């Protein structure tokens, strides 16, 4: 009886300590929000895919402009300006890297209002149909410290060919520290590992996959009256210097006119392959024998 009493007391104490710990950890993390959707999530693209099943450029842009209407963040008067954005595909074959060189201009006087180490760049690369990023590979790179955060959304099934897959998007977060500032802005490069899906059949053997320009945002923690708030600022693209030529990936595709030849020869090979095995079984019996004792 006494033993049971001690046990109850012990559990009670443990419960109190755990609740206190939970409370402390909750207080240490200020409630963060910038625009409505990100109160519970850290990815913009995730919020988009919560509302829409497939990725359509126009719908995505409408979504962004609708979501950037939060009063507090708008009052900050912080307008990051995208100066340079260049994307380039590196490598050959089905696994390539998309390198992005980005320069963002900011008003330094506004930046001084923000606590240090409080800003990060968010890049959303809406991938064209036929190309995907592996979310697990992005996670691996994040763990190695290449990105602050990164994930892929949409149809990220690695095995589907283009005809069966929907488009996907990659979202990368990069910390923007004060010491990364060069001149009046931030300058950084991102290298995204991308993979080609099996392309739809064609006549000439290659399918053209063309990339659109990524969306760049800056997310900062802003000191408010009562508590710090997290705001996302969409960068203005006026006068941005970008690649003069489009970024294109030529993915090899099966040729329709091969269909008949391949079907016939494949089945002939399979049938012909069975014959020598059958013959070997017959002849093997004739030249080897085990005596049964």
């Amino acid at each position, binding site marked *: 009886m006494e033993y049971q009493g001690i046990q109850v007391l012990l559990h009670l104490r443990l419960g109190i300590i755990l609740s206190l710990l939970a409370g402390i950890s909750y207080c240490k993390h200020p409630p963060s929000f910038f625009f409505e959707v990100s109160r519970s999530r850290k990815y913009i693209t995730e919020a988009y895919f919560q509302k829409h099943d497939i990725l359509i450029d126009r719908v995505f842009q409408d979504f962004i402009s609708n979501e950037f209407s939060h009063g507090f963040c708008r009052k900050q008067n912080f307008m990051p300006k995208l100066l340079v954005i260049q994307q380039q595909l590196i490598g050959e074959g089905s696994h390539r890297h998309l390198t992005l060189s980005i320069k963002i201009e900011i008003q330094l006087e506004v930046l001084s209002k923000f606590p240090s180490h409080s800003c990060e760049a968010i890049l959303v690369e809406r991938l064209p149909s036929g190309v995907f990023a592996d979310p697990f590979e992005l996670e691996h790179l994040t763990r190695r410290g290449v990105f602050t955060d990164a994930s892929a959304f949409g149809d990220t099934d690695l095995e589907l060919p283009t005809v069966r897959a929907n488009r996907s998007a990659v979202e990368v977060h990069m910390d923007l520290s004060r010491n990364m500032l060069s001149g009046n802005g931030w300058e950084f490069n991102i290298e995204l590992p991308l993979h080609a899906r099996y392309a739809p059949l064609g006549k000439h053997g*290659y399918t053209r996959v063309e990339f659109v320009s990524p969306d760049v945002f800056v997310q900062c923690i802003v000191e408010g009256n009562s508590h710090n708030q997290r705001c996302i600022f969409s960068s203005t693209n006026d006068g941005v210097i970008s690649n003069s030529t489009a970024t294109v990936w030529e993915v090899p595709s099966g040729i329709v006119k*091969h269909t008949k030849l*391949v079907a016939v020869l494949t089945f002939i090979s399979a049938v012909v392959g069975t014959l020598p095995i059958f013959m*070997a079984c017959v002849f*093997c019996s004739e030249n080897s024998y085990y005596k049964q004792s």
Partner: protein
Amino acid sequence: MGVLNIRSLIIFSAILRVFLIVYGEWQDTHMEVRYTDVDYLVFSDAAALVVAGKSPYKRSTYRYSPLIAYILTPNSFIHRSWGKFLFSASDLLVGYFIRIILKLRGVPENLSIYSVIVWLFNPFTFTIGTRGNCEPIICAIILWIIICLIRGNLFQGAVWYGLVVHMRIYPIIYALPIVLILDPNHFQPGKKPSIIDWNSRQHKSNENLGLSKLFDLNRLWVLFQSIFTRPRILFGLISATIFFFFTGTFFYLYEWEFMHEALLYHLTRTDPRHNFSIYFYHIYLNYERELSVLEKLISFLPQLIVQIVLIFRFAQDFPFCFFVQTVAFVAFNKVITAQYFVWFFCLLPLILPWSKMKLKWEGTFCILLWIGAQTHWLFWGYMLEFKGKQVFLQLWAASLLFFAANIYVLITIILRHTYSPVFKHLVTSHSQKTK
């Protein structure tokens, strides 16, 4: 001396594997290209989900039985390389089981040591376990089933057989040969099956056992009459119970996600992406339309015919039968990846002591032909995947060549094999009376 040799072989192999696992850890942290198999990361993620009380199928591309995730749960709380040690230990166990089987069949010590070396020091096999591929576990279970059958321990054999089919499905191809060897002439109540010794093999034939043996109607009739024997029914019932127990339990726990990923995916898998199979380009070219039932049947028939012919010809020499069946199954499959080769690599050492093929030069030629055809395919695969060249036709032609090489090596092995039933016919009480 012999015991010492096998012991030192296994110790040396263990050291090699530990070194490779440690090296793998180093490569993973310091180099861009990982040593660890991508599947291992999938297993580990699935195991972590299990630890967190979630379904392992929440990890996309996890297409195995939940049992694999369960046994890898210590990856989350002991060390992330736990699974690699487990798979490599199974790999060593395969080496040990090879020796047991060969010893049971009376193979001399030196020959069984050479056979064990073929497994333990095959670069393909020791890298597969240390990179974190689960196939060594399947191989170890298959070999343990062979041991159970040879020792006449049918109950245990049936339990493991039900489990291994649940885990990997492909061993279902061994069901028919197992049924055939559970013959009343070999397995009688209260008696251990009698094993034919390796030394009693004889190469010279003095009777024609050709077509007449393969299609002896009388033999088929006797077989049909004696098909429903006690050992066969018990083996079937026990293995089916185990299979349905695990499949049913996991269906209850993870519902259709489990059925789709772990079972139906493997049964209906038609991968349009390039792989060693002769069917890959055909599947890709026809992926946008549904294949007709006739087309599906035509592609399945060669596989079925070859399996039936091999089973009825070699079932009584069942380790050899399993080997040729597996080689043929992989060669005629709609999808072939390199990890499938382990399925027959683990059975290869079991047939070597009965082969009349000399390493000099026929054996060497077969090895070089097989590796050469595979390397040729890999070259075109590299051109497509890593150089982005449109070489589908060349790659498919390379698949046909690799298929031809597989068939050539398979028939050479069959022709050089000394057919050797595992069990002696036991004298039945009925035949004793007639005497």
